[in-house]
């Protein structure tokens, strides 16, 4: 099996270009690729579109920031597609001030849109959002007399993924609820960069227990930072 390059965090972060759409795994910073996030913060690449379940936390009073909140704070995003910004006051501030465009997507719809992009589907019909503001601008389609919204796939230029373990071929295994959006995003970006706490030899992972097949992963990085 072909081995994937293991890059430094800085080398990996340099794969993200100004203006790219960037997916970042994690749920309120749990299961987020903190090493890559810090490397991208150091690099300072801007005008990005972030696709992430949430923007983690940023308490304007205490100054405490977690996960992708570090990139939001540094104004690296021109647009954010997410389901939740409730714990990040800075994201709310930027949105209200018109500094950053925020597209709020129901969490299940966000997950499914990313999966659809990875799976080559042109879209899907969901009952979620019917009768709410989420309907705006979308096609409503009746199936068996029940209304559904047609939701479209969502893909990215680069995905930042966090795994518990990788083998050198790029197979990934996640831990507990740190799995969340990571396996979905790994299918939906042109370049997939996975940071792993442990990188083992090819053949050491049980093929029944792999969560993300190697072919989705382009670059590996050793996790250096696990704190949120």
């Amino acid at each position, binding site marked *: 099996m072909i081995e994937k390059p293991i890059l430094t965090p800085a080398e990996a972060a340099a794969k993200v270009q100004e203006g790219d759409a960037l997916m970042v795994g994690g749920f*309120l910073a749990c299961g987020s690729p903190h090493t890559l996030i810090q490397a991208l913060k150091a690099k300072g690449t801007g005008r990005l579109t972030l696709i992430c379940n949430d923007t983690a936390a940023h308490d304007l009073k205490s100054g405490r920031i977690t996960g992708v909140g570090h990139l939001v704070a540094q104004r690296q995003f021109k647009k954010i597609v997410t*389901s*939740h910004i*409730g714990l990040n006051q800075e994201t709310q501030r930027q949105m*209200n001030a018109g500094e950053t465009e925020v597209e709020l997507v*129901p*969490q299940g719809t966000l997950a499914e849109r990313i999966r659809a992009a990875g799976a080559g589907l042109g879209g899907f019909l*969901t009952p979620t959002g019917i009768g*709410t503001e989420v309907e705006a601008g979308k096609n409503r389609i009746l199936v068996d007399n029940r209304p559904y919204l047609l939701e479209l796939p969502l893909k990215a230029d680069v995905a930042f993924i966090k795994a518990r373990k990788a083998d050198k071929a790029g197979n990934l295994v996640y831990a507990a609820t740190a*799995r969340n959006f990571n396996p979905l995003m790994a299918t939906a970006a042109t370049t997939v960069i996975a940071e792993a706490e442990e990188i083992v030899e090819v053949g050491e992972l049980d093929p029944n227990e792999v969560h993300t097949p190697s072919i989705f992963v382009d670059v590996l990085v050793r996790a250096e930072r696990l704190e949120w």
Partner: protein
Amino acid sequence: MDYVANKDIIAKRIARIFKTGDVVNLGIGLPTLVANYVPEDVTIILQSENGMMGLGPAAAKGEEDWDLINAGSAPVTILPGGCYFDSATSFGIIRGGHVDYTVLGVLEVDQEGNLANYKIPGKMVPGMGGAMDLTTGARVVIAATLHFEPSGTSRLKRRCTLPLTAAREVNYVVTDLGFFEVVGDRFFLRECFAPYTPEWIQEKTDATIVVTNDCKIVNLD
């Protein structure tokens, strides 16, 4: 009559709805309290939308595993027989009707079964998170809320004025005054929690509240 806000009453009453084997998703905040009051002889399965079945109690101090959190980002535990999954699977479970009950917080809830709990335009826009999928997908939707806002305004309405989380999906509303069922665009008061009276609740709530003969007066203390 004096009103004293009481979240525990709400959690206590909701906890008695479940039977053994029910799959339940509890929202952040007030709904989380429900887990504390599930009767000992009833075993429910808690789903957490960030990717877990079999959500257990909060992690003990010093034993936190930061890869294992609930949807509010608090470190938790998993019960034997639980398992993990990704977010697409998690919402497949939710949207696919495999969750029996979802319990959600409320900004406004109305007699048509509409729920608003994710946005106050221009003021507070936390985002809907998983709430829209949960209200749409769960078999039974329970809105859990203190009956009144701090200002004294009832959270039960004729018609929601805030942007909706879900249209016509709420089945039950449990407040610290009573247990309401939404049927045919009206609230039916099924249980009135002592010391409040049905008449007092009707008077203080700007919504159609039907009280039938079988409305019970219940003491939950």
